[in-house]
Every structure is written in structure tokens, then in C-alpha cells.
């Protein structure tokens, strides 16, 4: 897993051209807001949309969320010139297909960071795999820039259209592609942005129960990155991706027992049907780190919201 512990449990993707979404974004409690220039923005507003990002960054981040922007695959230079401003954390690049694309993004972002007084390397690149070509080149794409820290894809609407497969079915139609992408992420030590398969045959995006179940299943598989389209899913995702008190307690217990094992020079033991060994110890340490990072993030957001409210908004 990644050394860089970003906390991106929940985030809303919204068209930057819709003021009521952008103006209310800070109230949603998200870890990030993904301002969209791509599919949710009509073609004739593309130029206008990118001029809005600079002003919107402060607006969407005042509740403590990070600001991301999804750019257009074919409008890299114009979009980046419009959006790389202090306060932006990540550029999401859709339909990534070749390592060279990511290297180009990296070069332009590096220049703009220098020109605009942003610490070099601040802006992450989300290289999203959404096509067959992207799957075929997944490892090279993920390795193309140190700005790629979370890596995933190979599912969703664009992928199903590209492959010509059904989107809402009761089985996992993306086993191979998702496997390739996740293995690449793991091999490079990046945070895999994926989730175990759960059937969604309706295409629902706003069901909070479903969002919680999916996030919880993803957390139990070791995944930490969420995101969605509807405000209803924010809180369930945060809850689902955050370790429970019982899990934290259990992790402490595992580490205590493991330390004891080490004292006696043993490699494993079984207590109450649970194995304790170095793998469980590593898992417990990871869970505690993640739990602490979530707590810090929640605190930051609560303080940010309190500041806004104090200022009388």
C-alpha cells in the first residue's frame, strides 16, 4: 500500500458549471470534491467551465474537503492551464491509455506549479483506466509519474461501452481488467482504487444503504478510496471506510499478543479460533494507522466547518 496516506473515503463528482452544487459542496462532509469539466459539462460550456475552477477551489474546500478536477481527455493543455491553481490537490485524467499521456500531464503540471507558486509535486494525477488500451498499458501508465498515487479503474460505464459488455449485471464482468490494474497498483506500491464486486443491477447511485454495504465490504478487503455522485452516499461511505471501535480494539489486542509471541520466539499461535502471526500484526498496524488518519481528517473537517460557521456564513 502507498506510503502517502491520503484519506479519500468519500467525494462527490459535480459539474463545475452548476452553482448550486458548487456552493453547497462544502456542507457535504466529503473528504474531496471532484469538480468536473468532462462528461457532466456540455460541449459549448467547456471553455467557460475551466475558468470557474480557480474561484471554486476556495469555495469547495472551506469545509475541509480536498479539491480535485476531472479534465477532458482531449483538452489537456487548455484544461490544465485553467485549473492548476493553489489549493488544487488532484487532476483526474479520464480514459488514460498510454504512459506518454501521463508524462505529458506531469510536464505541464510541473511547469504550472512553478509558475504559480505551488510546491513542486503537490498535484496528484488520477490516471483512470476506462478502456481496453488502458488495461493493456496499465502498469506503464501507473509507473509513468510519481504523481500517480492512487490507481484504479477498468470498470464502470466507459469501460463497459469500450468492451461492449453489459453494465448492470449480477456477476463481475471486469475480472481480468480490474485484476491487471490492481496488480499494477500493488506492484508499484500505489493505493489500489478498487472494490470487491457487489451486484448492482439497477444502476442506483443514491441509495445510502447500498453505499454503506459496498464501502464496508471494500474496507474489509483492505480498500480505502470511495467517491460518488449523490450527496446521500457521502456519510455512509465515510462510515463504511472508517474502522469501527471494535476493529481498533481488536487490532490492539492482536499486536499485544504478537509481541508476546515474539518474546517466546514463536511465529504463530491460535487464540479463540484466530491466528496471530506477523501477517496479522502487519494488518493490525495498518488498520491503526488508517484509523488514526481518518480521525485526523475528521477533526480537520470539523474545525474547518466550525470556522466557516463562526465567520457567520
Amino acid at each position: 500500500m502507498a506510503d502517502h496516506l491520503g484519506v479519500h473515503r468519500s467525494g462527490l463528482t459535480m459539474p463545475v458549471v452548476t452553482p448550486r452544487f458548487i456552493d453547497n459542496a462544502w456542507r457535504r462532509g466529503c473528504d474531496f470534491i471532484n469538480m468536473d469539466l468532462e462528461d457532466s459539462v456540455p460541449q459549448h460550456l467547456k471553455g467557460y467551465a475551466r475558468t470557474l475552477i480557480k474561484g471554486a477551489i476556495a469555495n469547495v474546500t472551506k469545509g475541509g474537503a480536498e479539491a480535485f478536477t476531472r479534465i477532458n481527455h482531449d483538452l489537456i493543455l487548455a484544461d490544465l492551464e485553467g485549473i492548476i491553481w493553489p489549493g488544487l490537490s488532484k487532476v483526474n485524467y479520464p480514459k488514460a491509455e498510454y504512459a506518454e499521456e501521463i508524462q505529458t500531464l506531469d510536464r505541464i503540471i510541473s511547469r504550472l506549479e512553478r509558475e504559480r507558486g505551488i510546491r513542486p509535486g503537490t498535484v496528484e494525477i488520477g490516471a483512470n483506466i476506462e478502456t481496453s488500451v488502458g488495461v493493456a498499458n496499465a502498469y506503464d501508465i501507473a509507473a509513468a509519474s510519481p504523481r500517480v498515487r492512487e490507481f484504479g479503474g477498468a470498470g464502470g460505464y466507459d469501460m463497459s461501452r469500450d468492451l461492449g459488455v453489459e453494465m448492470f449485471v449480477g456477476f463481475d464482468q471486469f475480472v481480468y481488467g480490474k485484476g491487471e490494474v490492481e496488480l499494477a497498483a500493488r506492484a508499484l506500491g500505489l493505493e489500489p482504487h478498487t472494490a470487491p464486486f457487489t451486484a448492482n443491477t439497477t444502476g442506483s447511485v443514491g441509495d445510502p444503504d447500498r453505499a454503506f454495504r459496498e464501502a464496508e465490504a471494500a474496507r474489509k478487503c483492505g480498500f480505502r478510496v470511495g467517491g460518488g455522485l449523490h450527496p446521500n452516499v457521502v456519510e455512509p461511505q465515510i462510515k463504511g471506510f472508517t474502522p469501527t471501535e471494535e476493529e481498533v480494539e481488536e487490532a490492539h489486542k492482536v499486536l499485544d499478543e504478537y509481541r508476546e509471541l515474539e518474546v517466546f520466539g514463536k511465529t504463530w499461535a491460535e487464540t479463540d479460533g484466530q491466528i496471530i502471526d506477523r501477517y496479522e500484526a502487519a494488518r493490525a498496524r495498518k488498520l491503526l494507522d488508517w484509523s488514526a488518519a481518518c480521525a485526523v481528517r475528521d477533526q480537520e473537517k470539523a474545525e474547518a466547518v466550525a470556522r466557516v460557521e463562526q465567520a457567520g456564513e
Partner: protein
Amino acid sequence: MAAPQSNTDVVLLDLVEFVAEKDKPSAREGLTETIRQVGESGVDVFTLIDSELLYADLHSCVCPELTGVVVSHLETVAQVEEADKLIGQLEDERGIPPGTLEIVVSLDTAKANQDAFEIASASTRISGLTLGRAELVMDLRPEPSGEIHLMQYLMQKLITVAGAIGVPGYGAWWRSPDRGLLATPENTFEAAFRGRAIGFKGSFCVLENQVAPLNQGFTPGAKEVEEASKLLEAYQAAVSPGTASIRQGDRIIDFGTALQAQALIDRAAACEAYDNAKVDALAGRPVPAP
């Protein structure tokens, strides 16, 4: 020494997983003597060694009675080449014909699986591939379905790569709550049965009571052999110049199907021959004094 009595085909002497770091030097001492003793019962003896401790581990175990090594946490072609070279030197020094010792690669990290084909092609000694304890090394956990996350992809990738270089893939299709080669005998049988169905040829285990279920799961059953024999007989009787396929009930039997049936029969015969050899070897052992 209980291992040979368990009717296992292979004994894997572990220097990696179940030996504490501070006990490794003492575990290496006298290892060749243990290998000799275990080997007397007719099983193949392997050692599980650490790719980061190749020198110490290999020096402690290379001897004429050793069949090969399983190298865990192996991630690069360079490591395979290093292991190959070191084994070659030790074969030379210890009077073993060159190229005798086998390497089974444990592809248990993400990087290893990413570069599986290159790694597996890096030495002619490589005689098998396994995912080892990848689920633990890579921290893969159960999905709501009970499948262990990513394992179906990794198993298929491993079996495909193994097929491409012409060696067996070792492993079983474990499901939750089985963990790190720990499972009940019943679940072990199921894992072996499913494992054989997707192309594994055998599996490692850690408990003595898992040996019989693995042997059973990986050996074609009498009924399967009988069906395959019937199919083959029918095919051979009916096929004639100018005909490549026949109908049998609801099925079309062609050359490929017949080959597959023959492979199953051969596999069953090989399993039986190996079991008989083990019985002979065990019978030939001196009876220990009461």
C-alpha cells in the same frame, strides 16, 4: 518423523514461514542430515528458502538427497539467476550432477506476479510455480462472496504462465475462512478439488490431516477414470480414416476430447505409481527399535 507416514508426496522443510528470525541459524544446522532421513522414505524433499537469504539457506540444504528448493518472496529475474548460479556452484562442490536441483518459484508478492512470465522463464531449473502464501504476503482478504479478493485472477494468471513455460502450477482454490494454508480436512478437499478443476497439479499444506484430502482432491477419482476410459474406447472403436469426431450420447467426442481423457487416465496412473513407490520405500525402511 511423522511427515513420511502421512503419505505425502513431498516434504517441504521450512526455513521461512514458521521459523523465527533468531532461530534461523540453528534451523540451518544439521539440515542436510534431516533431508537424508526424510528422503529415505521415498518422498521428494524440498526446502522453503528465502530469496533474501539465498546464500545461507542454500549452503545449509544443498545435498544429493534434496530434490529442490521453493524460493519465497522472489521478485526479480536477477534473483532467479543468482539462485541458479549459487545452486550450480554448490552442486559442483558437493558432487551433484549439474542441473539436478529444481527451483519452484513462490510468486507471493505483487511485483512477482506482475513479472511472472519473465521470472518463470529465467532458469531451466524452474520446475513449478506457486502463489505460496500470497494472500497473506499481499494482504488479500475475503470478499462478501467468500472468495479471497484477487485470487481468481492471480490463480488463472499463474496457471496460464505455468502452462506457457511448461511446468505445473501448485496451489489450491482456498476460500474464506481458510487462511494461509490452514483449513479443515473437508475444506482442504474442496480447495484441492476446485484447484484441480482450474489446473493446479498439487498443493502444499501445513497440517498432517490435510495430506489425505489433498491427495484425494488432486487424484482423478475412480469414476472419472472409468468414464474417461469408456469415452476413449468408444472413440478409438468408432474413429476411422476420414472421421475425426464421433457422437456419444449428447456429446461430440473429437481428437481433443480423447486426448484430454487420455491425460486424465495417465494422471491417475502416475498418481497410483507414485503411491506404490512410496509404500515400497516405507516398507524398506529399518524398523525403529521399540
